[in-house]
């Protein structure tokens, strides 16, 4: 079954796609240079560097809002200059220098406008980088910024992953005050900062995509089908909320680590889901979000290899993404899991996902992402829909429900139970949900009821439920699918996927 999409998750809508496509065509600020392959690898390099550069400058100046803007400007400058001038020998140092200069230029011009005395601290010559055009090679100051290696000691929360292994290339200055005992990687530190509890989930997602994934505001706006100005405001506001909450670049307070980590995984999950729901070609920019989510989750997994939930989330994403080629028709209609052409599933992603969850389950403290990945793996292992090991899926859903009770889990479980004990048993399981405020009136409850009624042979009730579900959903592809199901019940000749 699919990972249940959390109720209340912000969804995007039609109506802006033309604008969004127009924005993204030339609005991402990363011009293609020597062919698409070179541009793609430069883009990849810059995105990988983004959080580490931001971390290096932040550690020094601490002003998240402005530093983040300055790093974006530095990335843009690199995207413009490097294709022509070549990638500098120390790209990280180049970006740190340019970002620092932007930051200090900004402070200087502000100081010129305002009271010099009040700004004297920010203008301390000691904090100013050497002037001059950045070129190949690391500036001396940068070596001092990034020189100290990651600490060898373990993480603050053994349950959440044991000792994080710092990336060899990471720039964690774990020895400085307040950082002791934390093997720091800037990517993880930034991710946890962007998932601060002062922000709404939608703001956490937007800020993570910019500060951690290194996407431009135009790219994020395009993915979420909102005007760029709207996304700019949202990101600015999110950064301010973090500042107002008094959060700093560094490990979260001891008691907050577990909750913040959970929020971070949820954010990555939301980014993935947002991309995964894209159903046709004109939403490809949105689909790229799945790639970003997998990339970031992979980084976190590399840092915290012993964290079972991080591994579980990565496996879940891989196993779900593997189905993408089969989950829609050429014209964007949804294909249910049971009817997907399994030969179109991505074998490499399936293999990686299955191996990962198989290796993780026996070792780690079990959690909801691992269980969802295990369910996806059971589906992946069935060559045909009718070969699915439904009893095992039911057992996994029972475990999941015990750990993370949620009406969406009950719904998926009911579908699996129906396969083992018949549709009436499934209907019994979902009956109490009609009185559950979290899901009563939700189209997924109605759609599952319709499916189970259809299996039970109650055609009239199934038809009415499919019709009702098609009115309740706010997704056009889902509406099309549900209407098609309803039509097929009254007219078996009705094309299954019109």
């Amino acid at each position: 079954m699919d990972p249940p999409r959390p109720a209340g998750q912000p969804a995007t809508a039609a109506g802006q796609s033309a604008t969004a496509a127009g924005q993204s065509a030339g609005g991402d600020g990363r011009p293609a240079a020597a062919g698409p392959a070179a541009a793609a690898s430069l883009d990849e390099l810059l995105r990988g560097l983004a959080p580490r550069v931001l971390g290096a400058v932040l550690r020094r100046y601490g002003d998240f809002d402005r530093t983040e803007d300055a790093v974006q400007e530095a990335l843009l400058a690199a995207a413009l200059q490097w294709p022509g001038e070549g990638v500098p020998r120390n790209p990280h140092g180049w970006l740190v220098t340019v970002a620092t200069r932007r930051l200090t230029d900004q402070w200087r011009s502000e100081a010129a406008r305002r009271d010099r005395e009040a700004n004297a601290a920010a203008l301390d010559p000691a904090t100013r980088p050497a002037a001059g055009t950045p070129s190949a090679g690391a500036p001396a100051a940068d070596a001092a910024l990034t020189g100290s290696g990651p600490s060898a000691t373990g993480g603050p929360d053994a349950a959440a992953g044991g000792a994080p292994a710092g990336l060899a290339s990471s720039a964690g200055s774990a020895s400085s005050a307040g950082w002791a005992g934390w093997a720091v990687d800037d990517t993880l530190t930034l991710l946890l900062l962007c998932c601060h509890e002062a922000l709404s989930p939608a703001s956490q997602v937007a800020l993570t995509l910019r500060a951690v994934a290194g996407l431009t505001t135009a790219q994020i706006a395009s993915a979420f089908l909102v005007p760029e100005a709207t996304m700019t405001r949202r990101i600015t506001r999110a950064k301010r909320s973090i500042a107002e909450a008094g959060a700093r670049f560094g490990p979260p307070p001891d008691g907050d680590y577990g909750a913040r980590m959970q929020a971070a995984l949820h954010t990555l999950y939301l980014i993935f889901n947002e991309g995964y729901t894209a159903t046709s070609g004109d939403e490809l920019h949105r689909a790229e979000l799945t790639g970003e989510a997998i990339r970031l989750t992979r980084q976190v997994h590399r840092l915290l290899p012993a964290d079972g939930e991080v591994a579980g989330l990565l496996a879940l994403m891989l196993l779900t993404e593997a189905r993408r080629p089969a989950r829609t028709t050429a014209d964007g209609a949804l294909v249910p899991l049971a009817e997907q052409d399994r030969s179109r599933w991505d074998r490499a992603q399936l293999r990686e996902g299955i191996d990962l969850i198989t290796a993780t389950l026996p070792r780690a403290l079990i959690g909801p992402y691992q269980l969802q990945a295990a369910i996806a793996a059971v589906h992946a292992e069935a060559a045909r829909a009718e070969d699915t090991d439904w009893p095992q899926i039911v057992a996994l859903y029972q475990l999941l429900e015990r750990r993370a009770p949620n009406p969406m889990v009950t719904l998926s479980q009911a579908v699996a139970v129906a396969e083992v004990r018949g549709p009436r048993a499934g209907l019994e399981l979902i009956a109490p949900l009609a009185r559950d405020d979290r899901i009563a009136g939700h189209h997924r409850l109605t759609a599952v009821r319709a499916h189970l009624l259809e299996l039970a042979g109650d055609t009239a009730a199934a038809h009415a439920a499919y019709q009702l579900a098609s009115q309740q959903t706010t997704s056009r592809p889902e509406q099309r699918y549900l209407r098609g199901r309803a039509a097929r019940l009254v007219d078996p000749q009705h094309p299954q996927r019109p």
Partner: protein
Amino acid sequence: MKYMLLIYSSPATWDALTQAERDELERAHSELYYELVRSGEWVGGNALADPSRSVGVRVRDGVPVTTDGPYVEVKEHLAGYDVVDCESLERALEIAARIPDAAICGVEVRPIMDVGGMEM
């Protein structure tokens, strides 16, 4: 989640307002607009011209036929709309309640359809 806030008006209630009341209505709506822009929730919106400026278009047997005036004559007409992208329906309703027209005539909140979907 994106919502369209459909703002209704009726000549009867509008005509009954004093100029000062109309100015206040404009001011309150523009204050809400700036607030939504700042919060990153505003996606778009416009005021619509008087329904007398509407032209109806119907195609019959492949031939477009136009008629002046609104599609249907009603006491209340669509006077404008705002599109917001916000956390929840509750928040959209809260915004709708702050549109001054809600106190005079009414505002309707409709979800905007998503282009994405989950396989079922």
